[in-house]
């Protein structure tokens, strides 16, 4: 950040000495429901700080608490404990109609008895803006979402993708400090979903508003977000940029939920220089960067992504991880080949091989093969080496 930007951010916060105030801040937020005398926790303590202008994703399986977390930011759920702050202001007890954030609902929740124009103008009229201003902003927002010319249509006369953009325009027209999107692309088919991913990024750049995006689709989160919070069972398991979350999963859950992961447990045999060595089978070895926590004899669990692994029929060169196994399945997927390889101790590895050769599959079912990968692609779970 340049000095000027820092000055501007500090000036906005009203305190020249302070760091920029986050757009959204959750501190120790817990949400519990009461059902038949039992306490059911939905969110078990979330601390989160989302910066101004960030495209942020809350990613997790259904029931992980991501939607509940977002609804607490919008004001539809009251936290059992903890604080919600928007631009430094405590809004924990403020009703949704007096919070400076707007939401795009999964079902779009358009007003069926109003046309597109009235839908988009709803928030502006509620705020009592002059008629000229309302007209100008509605036109401007419809232009951004590429819906100009459809002002008089009713929501049910529009396609799913168009309805989605009306929902987006209706929220954006208010120029909220942050936009909350609840599974915004969930109801669209694949082609449209991919097109809208790019569209959402473009709109976010254009309006420069903080976007918080709830999704269970890891591909969507990786493709669109600046940072991702991976949630599971009411907690944030890992928070970081897409690359870090994918390449350096903090927990087993993150490794398994985002992409395909191969897991291997073992004990450190020796530490040679800056590499730790694990033995795998009679003649196999796994190399990984030795952090402070890796000592000979200590248990370790590593993960390695399928596309980082090479599959070969001859023994690989020294200096890389190399394990021998038997191919249990080999499939041709068009852009890639996919193999399942059983290692001596019984674990199965998935391997992706880009389809760059016209020789077809490297190995067939039943073949004995060598798997190899670079030391830095072995990542010890539960340890967070600085990236």
């Amino acid at each position, binding site marked *: 950040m340049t000095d000027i930007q820092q000055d501007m951010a500090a000036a906005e916060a009203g305190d020249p000495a302070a760091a920029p105030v986050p757009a959204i801040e959750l501190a120790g937020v817990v949400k519990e429901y009461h059902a038949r005398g039992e306490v059911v926790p939905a969110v078990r303590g979330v601390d989160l700080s989302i910066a101004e202008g960030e495209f942020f994703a809350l990613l997790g399986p259904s029931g992980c608490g991501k939607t509940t977390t977002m609804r607490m930011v919008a004001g539809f759920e009251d936290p059992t404990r903890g604080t919600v702050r928007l631009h430094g202001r405590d809004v924990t007890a403020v009703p949704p109609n007096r919070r400076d954030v707007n*939401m795009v*609902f999964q*079902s779009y929740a358009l007003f069926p008895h109003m046309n597109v124009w009235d839908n988009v103008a709803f928030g502006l009229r509620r705020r009592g803006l002059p008629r000229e201003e309302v007209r100008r902003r509605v036109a401007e927002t419809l232009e951004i979402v590429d819906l100009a010319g459809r002002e008089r249509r009713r929501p049910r*006369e529009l396609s799913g993708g168009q309805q989605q953009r009306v929902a987006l325009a209706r929220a954006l027209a208010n120029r909220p400090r942050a936009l909350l999107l609840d599974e915004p692309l969930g109801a669209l088919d694949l082609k449209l979903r991919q097109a809208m991913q790019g569209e959402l990024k473009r709109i976010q750049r254009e309006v420069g508003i903080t976007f918080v995006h709830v999704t269970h689709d890891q591909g969507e989160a990786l493709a669109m977000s600046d940072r991702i919070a991976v949630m599971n069972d009411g907690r944030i398991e890992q928070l970081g940029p897409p690359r870090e979350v994918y390449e350096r999963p903090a927990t087993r859950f993150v490794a398994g939920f985002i992409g395909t992961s191969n897991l291997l447990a073992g004990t450190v045999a020796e530490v040679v220089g800056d590499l730790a060595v694990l033995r795998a089978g009679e003649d196999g070895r796994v190399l990984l960067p030795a952090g402070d926590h890796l000592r000979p004899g200590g248990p370790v669990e590593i993960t390695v992504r399928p596309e980082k692994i090479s599959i070969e029929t001859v023994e690989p060169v020294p200096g890389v991880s190399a394990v021998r196994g038997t191919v249990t399945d080999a499939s041709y997927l068009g852009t890639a080949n996919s193999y399942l390889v059983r290692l001596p101790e019984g674990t199965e590895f998935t391997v992706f091989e880009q389809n760059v050769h016209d020789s077809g599959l490297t190995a067939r079912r039943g073949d004995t093969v060598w798997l190899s990968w670079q030391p830095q692609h072995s990542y010890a779970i539960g340890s967070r080496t600085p990236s």
Partner: protein
Amino acid sequence: MTSAAAGPDAAAPPHRGRRRPRWGDRLLRAYTWLVLAWLLAPVAVMIAFGFNDTRSKSNVSWQGFTTRWWGRLGDYPDLTAAVVNSLEIAAIATVVATALGTGMGVALGRYRFRGQGGTDLMMFAAISAPEIVMGASLLSLFVSLGVPTGFGTIVLAHVLFSVSFVAVTVRARVAGMDPAVEEAARDLGASAWAAFWRVTFPMILPGVLAGALLAFALSIDDFVITQFTGGATVTFPLWIYGAVRIGVPPQVNVLGTIIFGIGVLVAVLNAVAGRRRRG
């Protein structure tokens, strides 16, 4: 043998578009007309005898066509008073029952609360209780409380039995509504009050109107409960009942025809509006 049996079928051209009506279709058509005739015959007779040129006090045998009764609607001042009573009672009961029932319907359809099951049960008890039981018990209630029976008690009773019908129709409409739509209104800066009137109410309006029509229809022709709770107040159905012994004048048929006509008109308007809403 088998080839002979298969022969004509195989040779017949495949049926496309409209096929010849079969026995089942004809039977269904005949049955439909029969049911319609069964439903509408009494109404047709009522309308016809409003044009009957009868000379005696009884209006049961066809004497010839006349429109004279339509010009002499006001010949019986107590009949006119009874009709006015009925209309006033129905109007007040409809407004009150619709307001209360809409609130109940929204609450039951949207929220989970303590006592919901009990409210449900009470509503269905009110709908399914025999009128004679409700009428008799209301009368003993009013008498034991020392409430003088009359116009006011009729209105109370009519609100009581029609409110459940309104609540049930509104609840069905609310249950079919995405709760996120009201949240969206709140999110866009509407207070709870504004969100209800600008978004929820227009969306459930068809249900509210249907409930109101039901309440009006139930009230205007109620006899049993009105008989118990009416005291000295006479409504249209009560007047007809009293006139049966000395002969029902053709004016009753004319008034019945007018009420039926209004009902048909409202139904047609509702259908047209519904078609326009759906585009």
